Each structure stands twice: as C-alpha cells, then as structure tokens.
C-alpha cells in the first residue's frame, strides 16, 4: 500500500483528513513536490498530495480570471494563458533548478508558498493575485473564502492567510486567480560596472522616474556572466526592465538609458533577450548549481540589501545577487549556513527576514528555515494554527 494519499475529489480529500484527524495521524501536504524542501522538515507518517486534484475549471480571458484545481500542473496553466496572450503577472519562480528536484510544480504549490518573482515590485506577490480559494481545514470541513471578482472585502480575508501558509492551515483544493495580458513589448536597460551601493542608488533613482520599471535587479560581477554574455562591457550588470505598448517601451528605454549613461556604460536588450534574462533571474540560475551549498532568500528594505551583503562578506564566504531593487537578496554560503550571524545582521540593518531555501539535511535539521517571529506574533500564529488545524495534523513542524 502506498504511503501517500492522492485523492481525486475534494470529498475524498475531506474524508482522508477527517480520518487522519480522528486518529491524530500527521500528514505531509504536497502538490507536485518540487518545493517541498521549503521550510523545516515535516514530522509526518503519511503524505497527502493534491496531484490528482487537477484541471482548469474555468478560464475567462475577457474577465482576466482563472479557476483551477490545486494540483493542476503549472505548465498546463501557462499553456492555456499563453494561448490567449495572458500571464501570471507575479512571475512565480520555478524552484526545481536551485532545489535539485524534478516533477511538476502545481498552481496550488505556487500559492501555498506565495511564490513571487521579479515583477513583485510593481505587480504584487502571488497573494495579491489570488482572488478565491477552497480548502479543507484540519477537521475535514470544506471551506471557501474570497470569490472570482477583483474587489472583494466581504468578511475576513482567509485567502491571504492561506496563501503562504505552506499547507499548515489547510489543504487547498481550488484556487481562483487574476491573470493579466502579456505585455506586447519589453526591453531591458543594462548598466555595467556599478558596485552594489552605486547600483542600489541607481535602481532607487530609476524606480522614482515615471517610466514604470517592472523589474530591477543587480547581477554582481561573480554571477553576471551566467546572465548576460561576454560581448558586453565588464563588471557587474544592473538591469531594469520596461514592459508595455511598443511606443511606450521605446520612449521609456531612451529616457532610462540617458539617465544611466551619466553613471555607467549602458545598453538595451530586446524583447527576446529580456524574456530569457528575467526568467533566469526569476529562477536564480547561477545558484541552480547542483550543490547543497546553503542558499538563503533574504527580504529586506531595498536600500539595505547591499549593506547586509557587505557586512557578511567581511565575516564569511558568500556569493550574492539582488532582485526587487535590492530588497530580495539571494545568498549562497560557501560553507556554513551562518544563520545566527545572518539573522543578527538583518536586525542590524533595520529588519527583514531570511528563509533557508536549500541546504544539506544536516544543516537543515539544525537551522530554522523561517525567520523566528517575535513572541507575541508567534503566539498569535500558534493560536491561528489551532483554529484551523486543531489536531495539528497538517505539515507538523514545517513553519515552526
């Protein structure tokens, strides 16, 4: 008998959960399993996967919404969207590269982990695009929250609470989300040779301009060749993406390039090169290296990211690059995970948080994957967990 439950209907999933609750059997909740290494390891006897709860339920391109069962593969969602020249504007990362996993990421997994990519700085995170959910709580009850319209403040927003809860509050069975038109044109302005602090200032300046930058990343010298070729000037590459109508993108690219030209040699990448570059940034390509070197995802105020990295470089072996205008730092430690030092330094630069995305099993066992919360907030989280999962059967240990 398989150790994994793979229900094919919401009712079947609810039955399994009711049984598990009655016998206090902990369940490891997964979708496609491509990012199940996120968070602390789960103490569970059985797996419960949404893999067979699959399929797009409704897609109305004119209303820009889609509903799908949680286990629907991302490639199915993306193919349907591409057929109508639409997209998930929050650009969810594919974790398979950095985590060394295989299989099919699911839409439920994307929302359960609130996975958001470079366009987060303007378009919002996964949680900003999730309009409605159905989920099974820890008592085996099917619950709905939200709906399928863009504006909805009817009752408490359990949609946001479940998004990013890593399967610890409920089993998502259906998700309804906003989709957006693919931009008809895109370009990237690349400035070469800026150091981290100069790049932070340049990105802040660009985002203060009325040009609607939709991606702002700084690719440090050690990683830039993994992103942009050797035919360009040397040094780190600071990249700014513009998207929109062709006329807009052309005009804005000129403005931005002119602004940059005062501080560094700059060039413009076309639409095709832009798509590839930002997919690589989204998926953290330089650290999709087949190793178990500790990989941290750090979220801080945009202008603080480079201060953190500078402080760490004095103390330990670390490689890093920046997305989200410098506020999202991808850190690869060369040896130890250094969680204590990292989290102390984050406090020192004004706060934020670090998530351990990848490490060896030994390191993971000794390192809290998520940033510990202040005591009163942690107490609230515990009370909430009890209200959704009174028997504590969903992904025990995963978030704390």
């Amino acid at each position, binding site marked *: 008998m398989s150790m994994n439950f793979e229900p094919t209907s919401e009712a079947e999933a609810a039955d399994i959960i009711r049984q598990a609750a009655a016998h206090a059997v902990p369940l490891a909740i997964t979708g496609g399993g491509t990012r199940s290494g996120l968070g602390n390891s789960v103490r569970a006897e059985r797996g419960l996967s949404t893999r067979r709860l699959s399929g797009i339920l409704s897609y109305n391109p004119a209303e820009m919404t889609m509903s799908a069962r949680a286990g629907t593969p991302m490639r199915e969602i993306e193919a349907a969207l591409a057929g109508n020249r639409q997209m998930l504007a929050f650009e969810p990362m594919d974790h398979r590269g950095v985590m060394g996993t295989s299989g099919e990421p699911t839409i439920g997994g994307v929302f359960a982990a609130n996975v958001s990519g470079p366009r987060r700085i303007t378009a919002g995170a996964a949680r900003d695009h999730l309009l409605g959910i159905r989920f099974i709580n820890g008592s085996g*009850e099917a619950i709905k929250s939200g709906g399928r319209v863009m504006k909805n403040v009817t009752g408490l927003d359990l949609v946001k609470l479940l998004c990013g*809860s890593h399967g610890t509050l409920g089993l998502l069975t259906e998700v309804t989300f906003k989709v957006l038109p693919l931009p008809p044109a895109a370009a990237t302005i690349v400035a070469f040779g800026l150091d981290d602090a100069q790049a932070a200032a340049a990105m*802040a300046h660009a985002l*203060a301009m009325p040009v609607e930058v939709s991606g702002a990343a700084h690719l440090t010298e050690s990683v830039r060749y993994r992103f942009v070729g050797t035919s360009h000037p040397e040094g780190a590459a600071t990249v700014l993406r513009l998207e929109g109508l062709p006329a807009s993108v052309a005009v804005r690219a000129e403005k931005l390039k002119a602004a940059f030209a005062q501080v560094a040699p700059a060039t413009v990448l076309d639409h095709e090169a832009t798509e590839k570059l930002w997919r690589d940034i989204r998926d953290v390509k330089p650290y999709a290296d087949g190793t178990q070197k500790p990989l941290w995802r750090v*979220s801080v105020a945009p202008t603080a990211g480079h201060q953190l990295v500078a402080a760490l470089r004095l103390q330990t072996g670390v490689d890093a690059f920046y997305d989200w205008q410098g506020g999202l730092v991808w850190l690869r430690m060369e040896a130890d995970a250094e969680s204590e030092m990292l989290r102390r330094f984050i406090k020192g630069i004004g706060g934020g948080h670090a998530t351990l995305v990848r490490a060896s099993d030994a390191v993971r066992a000794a390192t809290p994957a998520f940033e510990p919360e202040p005591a009163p907030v942690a107490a609230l989280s515990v009370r909430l967990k009890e*209200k959704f999962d009174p028997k504590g059967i969903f992904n025990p240990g995963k978030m704390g």
Partner: protein
Amino acid sequence: MPETIAFLEPKPSVLARRQQIVEDLADILPPGCLISEKRGLVPFETDAFIAYRQVPLAVALPETTAQVAAVLKYCSRYGIPVVPRGAGTSLSGGAIPQSDAVVIGLSKMSRILDVDFANRTATVQAGVTNINISEAVSADGFFYAPDPSSQLACTIGGNIGMNSGGAHCLKYGVTTNNLLGVKMVLFDGTVIELGGKALDAPGYDLLGLVCGSEGQLGIVTEATVRLLAKPEGSRPVLFGFMSSEEAGSCVAEVIGSGIIPVAIEFMDKPAIGICEAFAQAGYPMDVEALLIVEVEGSEAEMEAMLASIIAIARRHGVATIRESQSAAQAALIWKGRKSAFGATGRIADYICMDGTVPLGQLSYVLKKTSEIIDSYGLRVANVFHAGDGNMHPLILYNINDPEDAARAEAAGNDILKLCVDAGGCLTGEHGVGIEKRDLMLHQFEQVDLNQQMAARAAFDPQWIMNPSKVFPLEGRPAA
C-alpha cells in the same frame, strides 16, 4: 427608520459601571483625551451610514500607541466592548458604536512619521488622512495610490480596517496591495508589529488578514505604505453612450483587449445630472450612460492608448467623446465623480450599495437593478468603478418616511443578493459593517463563517472588538 438591523444587547454589567469606567479612563488618558458628556458623545453616534445611531458609553481619543494599549488593556479586563474609529466615513456602519462601548478614535494620531523615497515608503500614524500622504510626497514626484472618494476626510487606519479601494485601484490595487506593515494593539493591550519596509514578511500573512478586518482583530496605530512614482501625465476622457448596456459592453471589451487604463468610472443619467449640477465638469447631458476613462503616461503614450480605446468605443456605438482640454477641466471631471455621493445627498437621502460582479455580468446586473428599483417604486443613481465590476447603486429615499426607508433597505438587499447570484460579492470596498452583516449567509455557508470567526477568536477571544459587526448575530460561538 425602523431598527431592522439589530445590535448586540448592551451588557448590563458594563452599563451599571458607567461612572466608574469613565473615571478610570480619565485616569488612564491625558487631559482632553476623553469624552463622556452626552453632548460631546452625540457626534460619534453614527458614521456615513446615517440610518442607524447609538450613543457610546465614552469616547477615548488617545495620542500614542501606549495610550491605545492602556485603554484596550483596561477594556479587556472588564469585558467592555470597543469600537475603533478613524474619521467616521464608513458607508456600511463600521464605526457606529453601541451603548455599552468605548469608542477609540485615532484622530489625534495624525503625524507622518517617516518618508523614505529611496525605498518608496511612508510610515504614518493611523489618523493621517488618505490625501495627506499623497500631498506630503507630491512635490517629490510620488503618490499613494488607493483613493477612496472620501479621501479628503478618511484616515489610513480606516482604510486598513475596510481594505478601501477607489477609482484608481483598477491599475494600482486596493489598500491591501499597497500596505507593507502596521503597528497594532491587540484586544488585551499587546502591541505587535507586522511587516515593514521589506516587500514580504515571515510567517503567516497576518498583515493580509488584518487588512479589511473591520476593527475586529485589533487597532492599527501606525502603517507603512508603498509610494509610487507619479506618472508623467494623466488625462480623463468622457465617453457618452445612449444605453447602459452599450457602456457596459464597451468596458468589458476594453479590459478584455488587454488595455488596462488607470480608471474606468461609470455614471448613469441620474448620476450625470446630479454630478454635473454640482461640479459643472462638462459632462454630456444628452446621454444615458457616461464612462470616465483615465489614461496616463507621456503625451505619445496617452495618445496611443486613447486611440485603441476610442476604436473600441466606436464599435459599441459611443455617441459623444470629450477629452479634457486642461488640467483644470480634468480636475473638474474628477471632482464631479468623487463628489457623487455628497452631491446626491443634497437632493435626497440615499443608501449606497457596493456589490462587485464579474465584468461580463455588468449589463445584466444594471438592467436587473433598475427592475428591482422600479418594483419598489424608488429611484436610483448608478455611479461606480466599472473596470473592476464594483457597482455603487445609490438608492434614493426619504429618511423621515419609515415606509420609504424600509423599502430602500429591502431593495438594497435584493440588489446585493443579485450581485452574489451573478458570481460576485456583497461588498467590494466599503466593508460589511452592520449594513450587510445579515446578508453574509447569502454569500457564505455557516461553515465558512465559522472558520472566519475562529480566526477572529484567535485575535480577540473575548469578542470585545467591534462586536456587533460583520458576522450575523445568530450562529456565533457561545460566549
């Protein structure tokens, strides 16, 4: 007006201790921060949902987070209900007190604490008005995006409580999409901070849960919001149609085509007349329906986008197209729209509905709305955010005629049920408050509400925070 919406029964134990409570609060708060005289309490008896009134036990107007915490700690110790209040502009009765409640008003906490242009954030006290934020950063080329029509008066704390929207949310999102962090006080006086200047926070998305929780999870005292760079230019254009159906289908095609203007606002003929009389904005008076479509960017960008929108509008039989000729006229166009509720209030009393429907259902819901209104022998003016399907029928009635008022309330309930049945929801941006509380079971099953109430109880196990609101009084967990 018949009291058809019930409040919780006042707690006799609280009412009996009124004098003691007032004396204790006077000890907790600095001089000038407590109102307990009847004459002083009357201004707090209702909000913009004026059909219901309840004079509170006392009003606390704290000046600091520590004072908010001290009042809440005291109230939770004695089980005294608390009703948070910003500017009192709620259209759903979210800030209407109850006779055994202490109102905690944030109006004295109105300072902007930090503006950080490099990180594009502003940290403000909860009593800062919505417009104050944009005004404070405008000279440096930034703005705060959510723009409820009441933005001159409404506070950021109230906006967070209701997850407020506004005309320009079509492009920029509502409050929850523009909120990065809060400092808040829990029911027992515990002060917590959620989020900050980073774009996300660890753990459960408590910030997302708090935003729109209508003052039931705690009292927000400070907020960090996202600032955006102002566009190079913006221009509203008026599109007049000879039928609401044509206007509705034009909206659906504009959105479906992949063009997302900053705003698409809809007015029907009664609303056009009311707003034009107030603002003299140059709205065409000979059409049945009007769309205000705003585009932004450089001149060339606005021209390109408008050309596409005009081509679509022509396919839907547009009768009149008027571009604003100057910044002054653009301001008048928006003044007319944003004054719609106030201008309507000059000619009649009204209830403002707030249901949201899928875009494809706009024309159908408009038609059914007018049938419902006719069947009750009432009048309606429609003015709303068409781009995201957020409808605002204003049902006109006479507040001094109890039968008329009852008819208006019944018609409103029918319209909200219509919105839910069309695949939408009861409220897009105004909140449930007391107004829509008893309709919640039309949108949710009891089991859904039970889960929401369980989440609520994780924050406020005593149910003292704004307790008469949001959840139907029947079906609540036993105290």
